[in-house]
């Protein structure tokens, strides 16, 4: 551990197995204070297991942990007291109101009662739920419940916010609102955020990403740096028979074409010169659309691991 500027949270060689299957094989990470740190990977990459270990739910088979440079045992009370946790599965008591759920969370973290009342009112107002504070959470929509979950994780003003796929099931508007809130908290309170995600658009919002594949970190850098690992551009060709078309592009044009999400993808530098070649190579009507785009984090994940982020994500959804 560097003595000068210790990471807010550091882990080293964290391992976990489930029977004979290795779920995490020696994960080491450093999360700096005030950064938004993403654990990116499809289902089965081990990120939810890592989340459970960070949340103190699961004891790791091996690994060392540091909080602000001080070594702590796995799942230590110091970490649990400093963290706000947002679970992927619902973590609220549906029979209780939003206000009661928050009040219980505040009591558990020993927030003084008057202070808790003030914070709960402010958090629920901020979530746009002030007028429904006394309704059972069971009656809320998915997006509203997510906002209550976030508010509950924040009621004790944690230094660390740890979230497992926090925006699963949210529509575009709710997704945007959720992230606006998280980034505002980071800006205003210096909150450190650790989250797991399989969504490229969510990963884009992180300062740094640990790319998880098969229970190991294969890269750990900013989204820009990860995208830069894919050379050039991505040409996406939509057609009725993508597999046949990909085979033909490979054979006739000698290009590395592969099918993802029902469309043919070709990664190439100077992709714009490729577009006319592909269009001219096939008769009219064979192709539905040809587009050119910058590589996304999904492309970067594929390039790094050879596995697709989206395919597993679709299975999960």
């Amino acid at each position: 551990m560097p003595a000068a500027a210790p990471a807010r949270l550091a882990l080293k060689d964290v391992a976990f197995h489930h029977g004979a299957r290795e779920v995490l094989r020696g994960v080491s990470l450093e999360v700096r204070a005030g950064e938004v740190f993403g654990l990116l990977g499809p289902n089965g990459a081990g990120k939810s297991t890592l989340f459970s270990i960070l949340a103190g739910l699961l004891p790791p088979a091996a690994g060392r942990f540091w909080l602000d440079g001080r070594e702590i045992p796995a799942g230590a009370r110091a970490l649990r007291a400093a963290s706000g946790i947002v679970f992927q599965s619902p973590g609220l008591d549906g029979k209780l109101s939003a206000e009661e759920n928050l009040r219980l969370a505040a009591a558990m973290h020993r927030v003084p009662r008057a202070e808790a009342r003030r914070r709960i009112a402010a958090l629920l107002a901020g979530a746009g739920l002030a007028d429904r504070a006394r309704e059972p959470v069971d009656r809320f929509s998915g997006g509203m419940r997510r906002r209550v979950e976030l508010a509950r994780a924040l009621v004790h003003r944690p230094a660390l916010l740890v979230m497992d796929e926090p925006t699963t099931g949210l529509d575009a508007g709710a997704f945007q609102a959720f992230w606006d809130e998280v980034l505002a908290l980071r800006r205003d309170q210096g909150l450190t955020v650790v989250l797991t995600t399989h969504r490229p658009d969510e990963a884009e919002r992180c300062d740094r990403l640990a790319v998880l594949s098969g229970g190991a970190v294969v890269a750990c850098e900013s989204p820009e740096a990860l995208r830069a690992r894919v050379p050039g551009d991505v040409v996406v060709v939509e057609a009725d028979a993508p597999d046949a078309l990909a085979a033909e592009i490979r054979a006739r044009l000698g290009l590395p074409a592969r099918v993802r999400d029902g469309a043919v993808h070709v990664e190439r530098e100077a992709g714009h010169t490729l577009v006319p070649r592909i269009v001219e190579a096939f008769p009219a009507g064979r192709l539905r659309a040809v587009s050119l785009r910058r590589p996304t984090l999904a492309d970067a994940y594929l390039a790094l691991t050879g596995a697709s982020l989206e395919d597993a994500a679709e299975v999960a959804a």
Partner: protein
Amino acid sequence: MSPARAEPAPRAAPPAGAAPAAPLPAPGPALAYDVATALVLWRRDLVRFFRQPSRLAGALGQPLIFWFVIGSGMSGTFRMAGSGTGYLAYFFPGVVLMVVLFASIFTTLSVIEDRHRGFLQGVLAGPGSRASLVAGKTLGSASVALSQAALFLLLAPAAGFPYGAIDWPLLVAALALAAVGLAALGFAVAWFIDNVQGYHAVQMTLLVPLWVISGAMFPVPADRPGFAAAMRWNPVSYAVSAARRALAGPDAPGALPGSAARDLAVLAAFAAIALAAAVLSTRRAPRA
């Protein structure tokens, strides 16, 4: 960490103008967190119970029907040797314990669902210890059980036990210890079994027979030593026995030989062992 520290990646440090990350506050004393967590869980079970009128109605209706239907059916054939006690009066303390038993089973059931999808996840990830989780959940469950028993005990005069003649401290102590023990046992089973069907199967084959052979429904057959031994090792027997003494005096018909103090001592030992088992069970990692 200072935002000015040079980082290889441009976005690795917080953006300019961001608030500096506050240093971590020192966590408070461990015991204070544990007490806070236990109180939260306790309060939650009680709030949930009193908010659901159907549960309140069921809590009173089910044992009432049970007591009256079985009690009336048996009263013709039952005769307590050497006493004029009718079956409805004999059965009443047994039904009180049945109320406690079933309430403990049902309130600890939530441990299974709740810890993978629900409120208990947040408690496990919170600053309290697992022992405080056991304490809070057991207290909550026992309080619900006692509340249900209290509702049913409103009928005591109808069974021939006027309120003024009841030894309330003894009754409350016996029922509270039994409720804590049974709830903690339920917690340990719930944590270990980890699925609702399995939990019901285990509880129904473990706890219901304990109640049946506790002297709740019929007295110890003096001519069957095996039966008598099973009853002597059954903690529920002592709860039923103490309840009988509380309702009908130290020499109540059907009470075990011995004193009320002995009954309570056995129940306290049972509660302590069950609590220890529940705390130990939480050391086991839940299935991922």
